């Protein structure tokens, strides 16, 4: 992207103007993809729901209404207006639990991606920048982590660390981290031989400055796309761990945990199973749609074609 800016005919541009132009260009390509815009809107909505959960949820998500066990949604016979989407087997309001569940999913996504991204970038930068045996050792370790099916390794890590949301997030982050390390390494190795890096080196920039200020900003595009994809996978995997009883523990209103608790009622109460899964599907789908759009907007190869 920096090349494109350098070639603009109008003499000098201020930094802010360049940034604005880049954003405009980005938005132009992103908004070409209708699905991506829909995904973005749903995602923003989800963020708003998560942030305002205490205000918009009609009930406390852990409050058990003993007179309202397994009530169907309001439009079905037997439903009550105060419980729009019905109640679960111990009388908790489904809608409120779903609303609070969005907090968990967003939180999980943000934490997992942050840990995996930072860890992967540092490891990948070191491997790509120094090369040689350091690179060899690091990349072999990454290969080993990738040799395990991700969910299985996460499960075993949780078995070591103990079940719970925090440990589940750490486990998933460890499992995702090699993808970022590989991408960063590949990008760094590509960028390192370019003239601007040599120029910075000749100008006396130290290794740390070269790694983080000179090279890293030019490797960000694939990392951003990978981060989006990992965000959605993290939401899925955390829900899967919750479903298997290894993630967030009851009574947490985490969607996967809710599904696990609802399993035995699938023949009697369709709503306790349907809604949490639908919430997972919609949020993961929205993030994946966004990811597709980001890839279109950030990948220069696709732009030209």
């Amino acid at each position, binding site marked *: 992207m920096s090349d494109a800016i350098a070639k603009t005919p109008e003499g000098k541009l201020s930094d802010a103007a360049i940034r604005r132009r880049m954003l405009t260009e980005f938005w132009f390509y992103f908004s070409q993809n209708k699905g991506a815009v829909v995904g973005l809107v749903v995602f923003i909505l989800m963020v708003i729901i998560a942030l305002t959960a205490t205000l918009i949820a009609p009930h406390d998500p852990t409050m058990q209404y003993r007179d309202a066990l397994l009530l169907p949604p309001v439009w079905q016979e037997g439903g009550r207006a105060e419980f729009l989407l019905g109640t679960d087997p111990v009388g908790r309001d489904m809608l409120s639990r779903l609303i609070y569940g969005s907090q968990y999913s967003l939180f999980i996504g943000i934490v997992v991606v942050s840990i995996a991204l930072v860890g992967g970038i540092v490891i990948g930068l070191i491997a790509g920048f120094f090369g040689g045996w350091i690179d060899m050792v690091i990349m072999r370790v990454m290969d080993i982590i990738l040799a395990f*099916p991700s969910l299985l390794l996460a499960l075993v890590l949780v078995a070591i660390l103990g079940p719970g949301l925090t440990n589940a997030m750490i486990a998933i982050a460890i499992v995702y981290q090699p993808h970022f390390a590989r991408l960063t390494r590949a990008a760094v190795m590509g960028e390192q031989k370019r003239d601007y890096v040599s120029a910075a080196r000749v100008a006396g920039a130290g290794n740390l400055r070269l790694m983080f200020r000179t090279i890293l900003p030019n490797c960000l595009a694939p990392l951003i796309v990978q981060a989006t994809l990992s965000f959605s996978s993290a939401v*899925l995997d955390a*829900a899967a761990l919750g479903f*298997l009883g290894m993630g967030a523990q009851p009574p947490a209103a985490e969607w996967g945990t809710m599904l696990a608790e609802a399993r035995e009622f699938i023949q009697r109460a369709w709503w306790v199973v349907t809604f949490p899964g639908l919430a997972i*599907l919609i949020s993961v789908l929205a993030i994946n749609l966004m990811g597709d759009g980001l890839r279109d907007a950030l990948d220069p190869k696709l732009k030209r074609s």
Partner: protein
Amino acid sequence: MFRFILSKLLYLIPTFLGITIIAFSFPRLLAGDPVLLMAGERGVTPERHAELSAQLGFDRSLPVQYLEFLGRLLHGDFGNSLVTKKPVLTEFLALFPATLELGFVAIVIATLIGVPVGVLAAIKRGSWFDQISMTSALVGFSMPIFWWGLLLIIFFSGFLGWTPVSGRISLMYYFPNVTGFMLIDSLLSGQKGAFASALSHLILPSVVLATIPLAVIARQTRSAMLEVMGEDYVRTARAKGMPQRRVIGVHALRNAMIPVITTIGLQIGVLMAGAILTETIFSWPGIGKWMIDSISRRDYPVVQSGLLLTAAMVMIVNLLVDLTYGLINPRIRNK
């Protein structure tokens, strides 16, 4: 070709050693005394503790322990389950065909549907078929399969009553275990209805397990086809006046298949992770359910060796994919 295979095999050795180190570390990383954990929940007397400790080798230094661990592995000794007391390898081999059958049928479903859909979507780029199939593919790709499995059970088993909810075959059939694959064994047994029963048990789990690979394969096939169809040789073939069917079938499809085969191979890891969830939902007696049960039963030797065997299996399948890849594409073989 021989050198290609040899280099790939040599490349696997450090990865395999790494996997054994992870499996070796597992019981030693658990909080608490590994001997007590290995001995189970009832606890042991101090004498028995020392005896077990010596027997399991925990009284020696870590490098020595690791070498002994490797030595046992090379002799095919993967330890015994704490719960059933049987050798872990025996259990693994007994359950593995169930997972293999499920995974194989799933990948066949995913490929047989995914590749044609991807090809057609690429040929009819921008059409309603392209849009609908690619939207469905993205939905499939985003699917929490444990929920998808429950929905299918509600609909097909609960509402329609068409398929059974769990297991591999109805209990009324019994026949010798020849291949370990229920579909084949039931046919071999010659019992009326056995095959139908096995198939009806297999269909929902394999559809659930196929969902994500199907979506990935369809998307990958479409983009590989689009890329190939823009190549010069396809344009030349068209310019020569070759019929569309031949251009696509011979020139485009064959070249587009190379990345698609890699994608199909890469789904093995995805399948293994999916098998854990699918087998849990459908009570399918395979490796995935065995692992998750062992984790919750704290049967650590099983978790340790199961982890090792699963990773080794994924690694071998990936090697086979790499080799196939080299077979189809000489450019890779001779690099």
